[in-house]
């Protein structure tokens, strides 16, 4: 398996008044193709800040992020756009992550068109991808508020995978959904994982869910990675006190 994403000694600080908080503190990890890496930890532990730095929504204070061996921090313009075709993200609240005035189909096609794919071709690809994600053609012509949360999350997965990214980041992608809907989305993600060789970075606080989906886990606490291993190793034989506490808190 080849390394898709390498994160090296990443640091991010936020200052609030005179106080400085190290949200991400010397974090390094890799994600390989076909692998699903889970990032768990409580709110404020720095999980989402890492995702934001990978997607260039925040800039790191120190350290590097490499996609296929190439540094991607601090890129601008055309170069940056080229990189971000390969990294896509699915957000927690699907309805908020679509433009409310665009039909779902147009929202899904936007990225492809920005990357120079012709409209008819983009439309064809969009319809195919909707089908893969379990939505029929008519959903392309609906607005985000006209579909349920689960359907909208399927559409946002379609939007993410339609450009064939190398890395898919899911930030709490199922936590706003009902359990029955969550089960369907998880099934879809598992199916996509077995069919193509995307690398996944799953940010999730539901340990039972990461145990089902992920190949490897990172446990974060106060900006640092405190434990790594396979989900079964970590859940059945946690080494750190924090990890034990996290696991004991699950009902």
């Amino acid at each position, binding site marked *: 398996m080849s390394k898709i994403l390498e994160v090296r000694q990443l640091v991010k600080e936020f200052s609030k008044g005179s106080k400085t908080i190290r949200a991400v503190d010397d974090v390094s990890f890799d994600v390989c193709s076909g692998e699903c890496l889970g990032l768990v930890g*409580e709110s*404020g532990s720095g999980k989402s800040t890492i995702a934001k730095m990978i997607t260039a929504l925040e800039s790191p204070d120190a350290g590097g992020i490499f996609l296929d061996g190439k540094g991607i921090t601090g890129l601008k313009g055309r170069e940056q756009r080229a990189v971000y075709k390969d990294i896509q993200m699915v957000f927690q609240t699907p309805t908020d992550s679509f433009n409310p005035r665009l039909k779902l189909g147009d929202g899904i096609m936007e990225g492809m068109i920005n990357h120079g794919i012709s409209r008819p071709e983009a439309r064809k690809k969009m319809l195919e991808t909707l089908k893969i994600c379990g939505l029929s053609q008519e959903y392309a012509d609906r607005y985000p508020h006209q579909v349920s949360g689960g359907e909208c999350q399927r559409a946002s997965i379609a939007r993410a995978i339609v450009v064939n990214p190398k890395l898919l980041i899911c930030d709490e992608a199922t936590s706003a959904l009902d*359990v*029955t809907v*969550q*089960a369907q989305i998880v099934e879809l993600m598992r199916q996509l994982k077995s069919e193509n060789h995307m690398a996944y970075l799953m940010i999730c606080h539901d*340990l039972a869910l990461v145990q089902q989906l992920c190949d490897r886990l990172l446990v974060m606490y106060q900006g640092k990675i405190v434990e790594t291993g396979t989900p079964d190793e970590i859940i059945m034989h946690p080494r750190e006190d924090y990890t034990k506490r996290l696991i004991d*808190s699950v*009902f």
Partner: protein
Amino acid sequence: MQQPLLAFNNVEISYDDEAMIQGVSLKMNKGEILGIVGESGSGKSTLIKASMGLLGRSGRVSQGEILYQGQNVLNLGDEAFRNLRGPKMGMIFQNCGSALCPIRTIGDQLCEAMKEHGQTDRQAIKDEALAMFDRIHLHDGDRILNSYPFELSGGMNQRVGIVMAMILKPDLLFADEPTSALDVTVQAQVVKEMMALRETFGMSIVIVTHNIGVVSYMADNVAVMHKGRLVEYGKTRDVIDHPIKDYTRQLIGAVPRIRRG
């Protein structure tokens, strides 16, 4: 036979004259914890909103009765209902932050609520609040009491709301997704605190949640709602471990369970 603390008799609730909830009958005794589970839109929150008289303008209980200690709360006057809500029946909302007044400090709001129901010693209120904050992992309680809601995180505001409902030690506590906005470690703490209140004060709790793990840990009885109807109701162990109805099986089957080896 003991009179139930709370009883729903064949309750139908309508919004704009369209029945959203039909034929729900439940009853609970003092000291009991009842869990109501179901998907969003199944009507689980609507049931407890109806008991607290919070259905809003367009909603009403169109059939049946809701009895608190044998008294139909639907026929109560405003004043009588006010005396019941707070000291007798408390409620924790899903998003407590938005239930707090944005322009007054947490401490002032807490004291106001306590004064309304008889406790006037500010220092005593403060001490009690600080002790309770501490038990649910809010360690700088003094700062919180002097803060405005917007200065606190969502999880902190949620815990403030939880303390405000629990500090009056109501006989019956309605909790509408009380821990969905919290981290699992904090959730565990809040759940334990609720259980402790039942141990110490015999508080009865109706907990509405989609978290089946929390319900199976806390509740004595479980009611499963689906599309406005009660599909299954019984002892927690029976319903969770041996569900009879297809829908319950599907719902429970969809919950990922942690494997601990």
